[in-house]
């Protein structure tokens, strides 16, 4: 997040300290990978670097499409009392990259955005981005609940399902998303079995043979 948004967060002054610390993190630009610098990842082969440079140089979504996506992803994953929003986690940039890397998403997303704007035009006489927040939510409510959606909304439902999935992936694979979900691994450690309180919670225990034969660690 940029310096201005960070100051704005401070100004609102309603966030707890822990959340503030998290909000500070984007200042160091650690939330999203610096795509230009990393050749598309660690230990890349020449064909991977070539592919990465090619798709990175392209631009798929225009400014209006990107503005729509930015609003939608923050409706899907807003800031809450645990973590930041989808845009703070770099989700729009992730979506721009991933549609170039996985072209199968391009038409469903571009067409879905167009479908959404036409619906808004019909109902509110303006594009989605121009609608009030209340109107945007009214529109999203039509397509966000597959089992309740009206038959004429099924294309919107499919679009929203895809966008919800990509938003969740983009968010929960970011640094703040991983902290939010509570993933504790990806570091050297000793696996000595399920913690005792969790075994107790489920009324389980390791049988004696397992305890005897499994790898042991020095306390």
């Amino acid at each position, binding site marked *: 997040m940029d310096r201005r948004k960070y100051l704005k967060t401070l100004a609102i002054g309603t966030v707890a300290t822990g959340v503030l610390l998290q909000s500070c993190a984007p200042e160091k630009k650690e*939330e*999203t*990978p610096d*795509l230009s610098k*990393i050749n*598309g*990842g*660690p*230990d890349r*082969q020449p*064909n*991977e670097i070539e*592919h990465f440079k090619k798709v*990175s140089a392209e631009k798929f979504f225009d400014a209006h499409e990107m503005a729509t996506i930015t609003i939608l992803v923050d*409706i*899907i*994953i*807003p800031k809450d009392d*645990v*973590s930041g929003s989808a845009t703070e986690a770099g989700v729009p940039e992730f979506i721009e990259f*991933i549609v170039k*890397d*996985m072209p199968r998403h391009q038409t469903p997303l571009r067409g879905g955005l167009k479908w959404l704007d036409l619906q808004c035009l019909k109902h509110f006489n303006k594009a989605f981005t121009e609608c009030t927040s209340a109107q945007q939510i009214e529109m999203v409510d039509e397509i*966000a*609940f*597959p089992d309740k959606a009206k038959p004429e909304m099924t294309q919107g*439902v499919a679009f929203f*399902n895809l966008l*919800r*999935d990509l938003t*969740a*992936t983009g968010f*929960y*694979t970011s*640094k703040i998303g*991983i902290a*939010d*979900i*509570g*993933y*504790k*691994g*990806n*570091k*050297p*450690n000793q*696996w000595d*079995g*399920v*913690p005792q*309180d*969790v075994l107790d*919670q*489920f009324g*389980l225990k*390791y049988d004696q043979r*397992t305890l005897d*034969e*499994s*790898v042991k660690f020095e306390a």
Partner: protein
Amino acid sequence: MPDLQIKKSSKTYDVCIVGSGAGGGMAAYVLAKAGIKVALLEAGPLYDPAKNVTQLKFPYESPRRGAGTSFRPFGDFDAAYGGWEIEGEPYTQKAGTKFDWFRSRMVGGRTNHWGRISLRFGPNDFKRKSIDGLGEDWPIGYEDVAPYYDKVDKLIGVFGTKEGIYNEPDGIFLPPPKPRLHELFVKDAATSLGVKVIPSRLSILTQKINDERGKCFYCAQCNRGCTVHADFSSSSVLVNPAVKTGNVDVIANAMVREVLTNEKGEATGVSYVSKEDLQEYQLSARVVILAASAGESARLLLNSKSSFHPNGLANASNVVGKYLHDSTGVAMGGVLPKLFNRKRYNEDGVGGLHLYSPWWLDNKKLNFPRGYHIEYWGGMDMPSYGFGGGIQGINGKYPGADGKLKAAGGYGASLKSDYRYYYGSSFGMAGRGEAIAREDNYCEIDPSVVDKYGIPVLRFHYKWSDYEIKQAKHMQDTFQEIIHKMGGDITWGVKGAEENYGLETPGRIIHEVGTVRMGNEKKKSALNKFNQAHDCKNLFVVDGGSFVSQADKNPTWTILALSMRASEYIIDEMKKQNI
């Protein structure tokens, strides 16, 4: 027009090995340790997981968040340079059949990213024809291979437990890790249904076995390669120490065209094109060992025609390329409601399953001839591309964190709460079964297609038979029973007869073997029981191509044992001046 001369190596080697995976790495290791001068040719670049590091990277260190690409089908951090399709190196299909061929072009081959499941074949696995009348018996039995399994266990390291099951021979085991939470639930459910569940047997060091390799630090990422060499890959455990002897020259990026032979039909070396300078090279050796994979070794033999070997080298029997068979595969998964809202802790564990189910039934009482084992996974994995996908399929079915049932899908703070609530509750299982080796499942040289180096390519012809389809149905039924017993909700994988019960496309399990099979009868096999070509005494094939039948086990441990056995035989025969 480039200079088209062939560059002949001034150095003559004792042995030339084509391919540096499990078979080639083991041969290089054993021969080099015995003082034999080896040229180890590999069609891809050098690779060492201590230097080519993707381990311990977070998903945000990949712009696609760990998703696969055509360059890395198993994910952006996976240690396989290659994939199902390699640009400029095509293969073709015959008569509307389909076989998917995975190739890793790198030192260590597919052992860099494999699942480390290290199972011995059992006594029955070498004698299937005697048991059910199908396929062919091996020319060797478990007792011939057992001493080599022992040596492989000690050299490489494998964890497991002694179970005393006749056809699942125990090895020399390191202690296994304790089961994860979902694995305890699987074990309870499966055991109550009569499905045996025992600690897995993976070549991962839970204890140090020497000063060259570290021990596992439980990051669950063996498929990315291990920076401390705590798991088995041919690159780190065999090729590195082989090179350190000073007896091995690794020639990377060398795409072998053919095996060269003399007027007596004996192998004299190989010719290859370097992917680095696109120049043509020839290399001489007393002995040639092919370990390029079941597909590539068959391709090389079939492309090595001469007046002495008009049907391809080592192919007077006409079996080369035939009897190709891959493991069967069926998978299913879902969520376990009792794991909703679970406490967070690091449950990465080793890079794979801590428990598995060896084949537990008698095929004489079933309508399909061969068995399968079951692999399990699940729990609080590191988020990666696809995380949270399809949540609308689950979050309308169960009350959420607030105890209230709501409409599926949704958005906002309530949706965020759902992702947290359901995290770590998913699990899955997969069967890996034995297919029957059949003459009409084969690869051959496509008469009209060459790769970008001008080398004629393979054309595959492969169909599953009723045996495999019935076995797949049994997997479907068994998995559903286990999941229901666990109290799980199946969210994917249920398939009916119209989809062959979810049976994967041949090749997809990447256990293809059988194309250069061994046997006692020269008319029905290409190799003798020491992996030596019947028709060419100084030519050996030590990859999965030499297998007669696949077993319901992963092939790597048997490739290693047979390659070690063949290599000791080669040393002996060289000493006796027989080759």
